[in-house]
C-alpha cells in the first residue's frame, strides 16, 4: 500500500531531511504555481505554523484541468483572500488534527498518508506515528452518508437540465461513492484522477467509467443518469454499513 510507504517517509525526520522534504514538495508543483507556493510557505512560517502539508492531486502529481492547489496548515489561519482563487488552505489546530484523525476524517488521513510535508515542527511525525501504532483508518460510514446525499443532489441537478452543474455535482457524487467503496474494501483512495484505476481494480467498472467521464467533462445528461443510478444502487444496497471509525486494520 502506498500509504504505508508515505507514512514512513513523513516520520522521524531530521532537520536536513525536512529541508529535503520541502524541496520535494516544491518539485511537484507546476512552475506557474511556484510563486504562489512560496508565498503560502512564507506566510505559514511567519505565522509560526506547526506544519504545512501540500495535499490533493498536486501532491500526487496527478492534477486535472480543474485541480486547486491545496494545503493542510497546522496552526493558526493565514491571510489568503488576496491570493488567487485556486488556492485552498485548510487550517487545523494541532488538537483538531488529532481529534479528526481519531474521528476517522478521511481528508486528514489523506494528507498525513499521501501529502507532501513542506515543513513540520513535530506534529506530523506525531500523528503519522499515531496512525501507524494504533492502525487508524478513515470512517467509511461518514463517506457513505456524504455519498448518498451527493448522489441525490446530482440526480436533481441532472433533472434541472443544467449540464455544467450536473457534471460538477455528478463528479462530486461519484468521487465520494468511490472513496466510500474503496475504504470499505480497505484500499486507501488516492487522488481523484487516480480513483478510476483503483475502482477498476476493485471490480467497479461502470463507476470507474463514470468518474473518468465526469473528470474529463465528457458525459451527457443521459450518461450521467446511468452512472448515478449505478452509484445509487451501490450505496443503497448497504443497509447497515460497517462502522470503521478508529477501527484497527485486519
Amino acid at each position, binding site marked *: 500500500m502506498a500509504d504505508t510507504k508515505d507514512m514512513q517517509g513523513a516520520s522521524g525526520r531530521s532537520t536536513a531531511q525536512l529541508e529535503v522534504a520541502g524541496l520535494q514538495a516544491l518539485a511537484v508543483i507546476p512552475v506557474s504555481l511556484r510563486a504562489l507556493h512560496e508565498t503560502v510557505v512564507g506566510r505559514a512560517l511567519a505565522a509560526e505554523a506547526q506544519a504545512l502539508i501540500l495535499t490533493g492531486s498536486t501532491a500526487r502529481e496527478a492534477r486535472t484541468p*480543474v485541480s486547486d492547489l491545496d494545503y493542510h496548515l497546522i496552526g493558526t489561519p493565514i491571510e489568503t483572500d488576496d491570493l488567487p*482563487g485556486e488556492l485552498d488552505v485548510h487550517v487545523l489546530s494541532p488538537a483538531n488534527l488529532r481529534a479528526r484523525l481519531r474521528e476517522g476524517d478521511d481528508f486528514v488521513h489523506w494528507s498525513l498518508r499521501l501529502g507532501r510535508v513542506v515543513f513540520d515542527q513535530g506534529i506530523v511525525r506525531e500523528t503519522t506515528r499515531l496512525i501507524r501504532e494504533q492502525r487508524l483508518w478513515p470512517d467509511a460510514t461518514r463517506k457513505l452518508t*456524504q455519498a448518498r446525499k451527493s448522489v441525490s443532489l446530482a440526480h436533481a441537478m441532472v433533472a*434541472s*437540465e443544467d449540464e455544467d452543474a450536473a457534471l460538477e455535482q455528478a463528479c462530486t457524487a461519484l468521487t465520494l461513492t468511490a472513496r466510500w467503496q474503496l475504504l470499505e474494501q480497505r484500499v486507501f483512495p488516492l487522488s481523484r484522477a487516480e480513483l478510476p484505476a483503483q475502482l477498476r481494480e476493485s471490480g467497479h467498472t461502470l463507476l470507474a467509467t463514470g468518474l473518468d467521464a465526469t473528470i474529463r467533462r465528457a458525459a451527457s445528461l443521459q450518461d450521467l443518469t446511468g452512472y448515478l443510478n449505478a452509484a445509487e444502487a451501490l450505496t443503497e444496497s448497504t443497509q447497515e454499513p460497517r462502522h470503521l471509525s478508529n477501527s484497527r486494520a485486519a
Partner: protein
Amino acid sequence: MAKSKAQLAREHLERALPAVAAGDYTEVVAWLFVALEAAIAAVAARHGLEVEPKHWQKLDVAEQLQAEGRLGVDVAATLRTLNEARKQALYEGEEPDLDGKSLEDLAAAVESAVEQAEGAGDG
C-alpha cells in the same frame, strides 16, 4: 430547447429557498452555489466574457463584472463563501462556515444576482 442560464439560475434559487426555511445547509449551499454560477454566466455572456469551468476562474469573471458595475458589490464574496461552504458540506459532511452570514443573507444576495441575470438576458 435548452434552458437559458438566467432561467436555470432562477430554478436553482427556487430549489434552495425551501431548504433555507428548513435549515438544510447542504441543500442550500449546493443550490445557491449553482444558481449564482448560472447567474454570473448569464451576465458574462451578455457582455461577451467567456466563462471557464474552473470555479476560481468564474470568481475572476464575477470580480471583473462587479468592478465594471454589471453585478452587485457582494457577488464575488458570496461566490467565494458558497464555494467553500459547498466543499465543507459535501466533501467533509460538516456544517459550513458562512463567513458570518446567515443562509437567508446568502439567499438574498443570490436572488439579487439572479434578478440582474434576468434583466441582462443571455446575450
